[in-house]
């Protein structure tokens, strides 16, 4: 295993040390493994709390800051945080105006956030939750745990964070979160496995001439394994199911192409060069584009595409100032 690590058991604690050292705007609660804004939540502002397993950086800790999250609970690698962690994040972030939990749809995340929300409610904190489930690779979602939550989470955190910053109340913040969540679709492709530090070897073996289509962000194998294809063909494998899932013509959209951690930016741009015309052909009116490593799967070579149908309010909030390690503009 070729990684910058000391003891694999300490990866999370030590990465949090680095985050604290690098970002004076953030405060790391090392005991609870929670990343917070250094400044307490403004009175009256609804707090946004997210979290999940680690290994997806900059998500979520890198999205804590003005205009986006108030706190993020960091679980072990690929392991959702515990209710205690989420509760600590929730209580620390709450200014009295309530807290929105942004949860990705994985059994572990859903259960742990659910328990945390119950505990927080018992402590008198108002909590609303939104569960993101945008991965169109999961087609049989009615009979199963449903779709996974992936890239839409990033876009949601940005847009809804901006609304919260404007002072909207919890109901309005939660309503917008649900709208964004429903407007997003994602699809991921992996060229290699990733290596979980504690496991010490790749999660799966993939021959040199094969790739995994329809992967999530936890190094799990995808929906199908196919022959390695050209960027042009891969772009189609990503765009088609998303466009198909939208059904009707898609309106104005925000598009995120995220590398999965082991794919350099030059390849991401090349891939986007293939994706853009396909989206245009499908009638998607791309208004904003984000390319880079925003939601990752450790060192996996691969990429995920997210399309969020965005109305004027969402676009306005997307453009609003944001100051986080992972996304920063307008201030």
């Amino acid at each position, binding site marked *: 295993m070729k990684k910058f690590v000391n003891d694999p058991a300490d990866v999370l604690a030590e990465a949090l040390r680095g985050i604290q050292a690098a970002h004076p705007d953030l405060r790391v609660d090392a005991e609870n493994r929670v990343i917070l804004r250094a400044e307490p939540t403004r009175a009256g502002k609804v707090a946004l709390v997210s979290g999940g397993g680690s290994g997806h950086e900059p998500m979520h800790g890198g999205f804590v800051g003005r205009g986006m999250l108030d706190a993020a609970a960091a679980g072990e690698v690929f392991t959702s945080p*515990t209710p205690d962690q989420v509760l600590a994040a929730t209580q620390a972030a709450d200014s009295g105006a309530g807290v929105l939990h942004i949860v990705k749809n994985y059994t572990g995340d859903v259960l*742990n956030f*659910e328990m945390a929300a119950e505990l927080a409610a018992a402590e008198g904190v108002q909590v609303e939750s939104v569960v993101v489930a945008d991965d169109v690779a999961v087609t049989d979602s009615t009979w199963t745990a449903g779709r996974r939550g992936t890239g839409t989470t990033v876009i949601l955190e940005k847009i809804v964070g901006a609304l919260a910053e404007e002072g909207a109340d919890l109901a309005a913040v939660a309503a917008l979160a649900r709208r964004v969540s429903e407007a997003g679709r994602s699809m991921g492709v992996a060229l290699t496995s990733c290596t979980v530090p504690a496991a010490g070897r790749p999660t799966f073996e993939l021959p040199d001439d094969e790739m995994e289509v329809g992967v999530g962000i936890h190094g799990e194998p995808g929906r199908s394994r196919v022959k390695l294809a050209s960027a042009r063909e891969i772009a189609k494998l990503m765009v088609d199911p998303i466009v198909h899932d939208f059904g009707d013509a898609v309106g104005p959209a925000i598009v995120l192409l995220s590398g999965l951690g082991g794919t350099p930016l030059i390849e991401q741009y090349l891939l986007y060069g293939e994706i853009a015309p396909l989206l245009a052909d499908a009638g998607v009116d791309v208004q904003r584009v984000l390319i880079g490593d925003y939601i990752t799967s450790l060192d996996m070579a691969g990429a995920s595409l997210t399309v969020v149908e965005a109305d004027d309010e969402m676009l306005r909030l997307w453009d609003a100032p944001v100051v986080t390690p992972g996304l920063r503009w307008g201030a």
Partner: protein
Amino acid sequence: MSAAVTTSDLVAWIRAFRDAVHQQKDELTRLDSEIGDADHGSNMARGLDAVIAKLDVAPASPTELFKTVGMTLVSTVGGASGPLYGTLFLRMGPALAEADPVDAAALGAALRAGVEGVIARGKAEVGDKTMIDALSPALEAWDSAARDGASPAAAAGAAAEAAARGRDATEPLVARKGRASYLGERSAGHLDPGAASATLLLEALRDALAAAE
């Protein structure tokens, strides 16, 4: 031996479970690599280490023991298995609060409360390819053994066997719950890691109670 299970027998169970998970840690993670995210072994090992650290002071009752175990698992494991195993123990505790002696029937009732808690949390049914596929048959086997007057150790033996069969039966299944469900048809052909750890749980109980006899 008597048919009554003591708190220290149950502590021995938890210790045996921890040891079994450590021994099978890589195998549990390997199973989770096939159809999941390669962390089930480390998740369970981390949680049970935390549990053992809490057991330095002997708990006064089964109820107290299971509360400690459940709370600790919930607060240290994370993932799907943390809340589910945590709930299992958190629900077992109260079910034993009035039990005196803690006999096969009482333990069976506690187990039932625990498994029902897991089902209520996780919404899985038998056949969904989860730990429930090991836990549910184990419960049935326990109850039927207890009805036939089996000792706790014998009931646990029957339950462990049933769990192992349930675990093995997960192999051909297509997962409908947990992250293995994202693989669709590809989840078939592999054992469910949670069913494997749940089998270790019942086997540890069998061994701890057998040693106490």
